[in-house]
């Protein structure tokens, strides 16, 4: 019988401590390699397939996989795992922007020190991509896995009805389309349909779907930051901001959060959207009868010359330093990114492996014949950028996002001023 409060306290403390030990996801004394995959049903299906195939051929290097939470929460999950030292051996859904801070914390394995890595990578990716994924200390800590390029989704019928058989390609054309499409049907002084929509929220994430892709398009794949230097004080930033500013100032894009209704693109409330291949599955499921849509590259400044780039939302694979045999781990990872499995990935998940020449490689042409909607993305995949190497990327985008809000959404600053202010603030945190 518990005699006193002290005893009770001690008992409870012991219970607590033992609970905390129980709650661990995994301890590092595993006999197999633990692979964390993304949580959506398609990637789980792929992981299942590829792990089974590997285990059959390589029983000496057993692998098991486990899906982890998706979206922003996956980042926190990984963070908690890193702190609690319960990381898996490798993880395939790491956003490229997160890698640098983990690399600097010495949590990831330097992959270029593994046999065969550099060779495989130079076959898979072109030199700009490789430069992009090289960390500030010269090592490479990530394997490019997949991309979802941001492109312009447009309503074919609506566009044709306002005279755009071909979708608008430049800022002027887009603004012209907006002028023709935006209408006030019930005469209350407010537009009832808009040319497009982008979240006006100030969260730093949002800019990956409006400003950043447009900036990349306008600058031909330019950088935002490099080391501790600000790189975005240029025409491309100013022009892309000016373009977006016009869209909001003339109400071609709604400032109000359009969440009080069904999908606004599929119900023709907006005619275009900046989005990625994930839209295809959604659109096919929910589109009304007779609805036709397609994708094209993002608009660029009128005087732009060169290749049209965009943001690819790259997710990469990393090996954590708790892995006891990184070389063996690499064998597995090289397997899942080989040609056959890349095709399998494409087929199951409708996401593009980040492989150069995926469009020109005849190995994949069958797939693209059957999946016409993916062709624009495959073509775009040669001109895709991820994120710059910086451990404070979130803060950079947060600053840009705030200037974006002042300038583009509320028209309170000129694009030049916004860029200058952002540059000043970013310079401070880069030091």
């Amino acid at each position: 019988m518990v005699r006193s409060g002290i005893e009770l306290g001690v008992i409870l403390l012991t219970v607590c401590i033992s609970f905390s030990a129980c709650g661990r996801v995994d301890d590092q004394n595993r006999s197999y390699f633990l692979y964390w995959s993304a949580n959506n049903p398609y990637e789980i299906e792929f992981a299942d397939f590829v792990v089974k195939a590997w285990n059959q051929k390589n029983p000496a290097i057993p692998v098991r996989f486990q899906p982890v939470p998706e979206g922003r929460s996956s980042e926190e999950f990984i963070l908690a795992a890193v702190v609690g030292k319960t990381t898996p051996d490798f993880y395939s859904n790491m956003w490229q922007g997160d890698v640098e801070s983990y690399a600097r914390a010495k949590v990831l394995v330097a992959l270029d020190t593994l046999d065969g890595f550099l060779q495989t990578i130079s076959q898979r990716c072109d030199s700009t991509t490789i430069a992009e994924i090289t960390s500030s200390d010269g090592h490479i800590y990530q394997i490019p896995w997949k991309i979802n390029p941001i492109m312009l989704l447009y309503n074919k019928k609506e566009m044709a009805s306002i005279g755009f058989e071909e979708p608008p390609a430049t800022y002027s054309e887009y603004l012209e389309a907006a002028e023709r499409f935006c209408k006030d049907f019930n005469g209350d002084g407010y537009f009832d349909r808009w040319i497009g929509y982008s979240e006006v929220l100030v969260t730093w994430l949002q800019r990956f779907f409006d400003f950043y892709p447009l900036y990349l398009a306008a600058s031909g794949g330019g950088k935002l930051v490099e080391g501790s230097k600000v790189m975005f004080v240029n025409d491309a930033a100013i022009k892309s901001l000016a373009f977006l500013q016009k869209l909001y100032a003339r109400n071609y894009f709604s400032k109000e959060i359009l969440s009080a209704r069904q999908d606004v693109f599929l119900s023709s409330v907006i005619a275009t959207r900046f989005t990625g291949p994930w839209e295809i599955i959604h659109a096919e499921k929910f589109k009304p009868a007779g609805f036709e849509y397609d994708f094209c590259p993002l608009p660029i400044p009128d005087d732009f010359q060169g290749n049209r780039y965009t943001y690819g939302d790259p997710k990469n694979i990393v090996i954590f330093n708790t892995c006891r045999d990184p070389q063996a781990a690499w064998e597995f990872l090289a397997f899942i990114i080989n040609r056959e499995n890349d095709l399998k990935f494409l087929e199951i998940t409708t996401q593009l492996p980040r492989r150069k020449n995926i469009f020109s490689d005849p190995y994949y042409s069958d797939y693209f014949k059957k999946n016409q909607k993916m062709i624009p993305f495959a073509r775009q995949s040669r001109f895709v950028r991820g994120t710059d190497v910086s451990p404070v990327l979130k803060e950079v985008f947060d600053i840009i996002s705030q200037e974006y809000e002042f300038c583009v959404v509320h028209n309170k600053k000129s694009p030049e001023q916004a860029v200058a202010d952002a540059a000043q603030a970013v310079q401070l945190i880069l030091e």
Partner: protein
Amino acid sequence: MMKKFVLYSGLTAGALMFLYPFIWMISASLAPEQEIASLNLLPTEFTLRSYLHMIDKIPIGRAFINSLLVSVSVTAGVLVFSSMVGYALSRLHFRGRDMIFYIILFTMTLPFQITLIPQYILIVEFGWANTYLALIVPYLVSTLGILMFRQYFMAIPQDLIDAARIDGCGELKILFRILWPNSVPALVTVGILTFMSVWNEVLWPLIVIRTEELMTMPQMVALFAVGGRAESQLGTKLASAALLAIPVLVAYSFFQRYFIQSMATSGLKE
């Protein structure tokens, strides 16, 4: 007479203002998608589509269970521990008793803003991030509870306690066998207050829980409302909000007297 009319209309108008948004929320969550944004209270047809869609998108049932688990555990814990300390402070004599009392008063004045970050770090270092422990343990002791129990116990006649001691009861037995049965109002008050505040707590879960399996209900609904997974469907968002509100609404309609009393007395204690 006129005065009465004005009075009643004012009161009723007030009541409507406070009730209407909730009524609208529930009715809109049951309405077909096109009608959701309309102002009228009765949809042309009732449909559970928003609810079904929501259940499909987020594990709201799981979140409900999590909230229930956490709230019940914390309430039980608070009742036990706060009454222990309240008992000690009111009836037992030991060195440092008064000092502890003042420490308690002092900690009540500390804004939580100071302790938030280090508490999170503590949780992470213990390895409790993404566990129920993170949600339960920091809340196990409620200074308000301690004060209320102390207040209430001070009014209980000493003879009862002395008699129990003579019978050879240990301190804990005295607490649970004698004091508790005689302090039902205090138990109810502290119980309701604790349960409500833990149930509605959302900042802390947002900080320490990032996996969906362990999220509490308000947290899940909040993230659902902010994130994109509702797929821009207003009805679904309202359905999730309605579901979050309904347990409280039900409890409240039966026990509103106790709710009001509890929160009023807690305010008076300040």
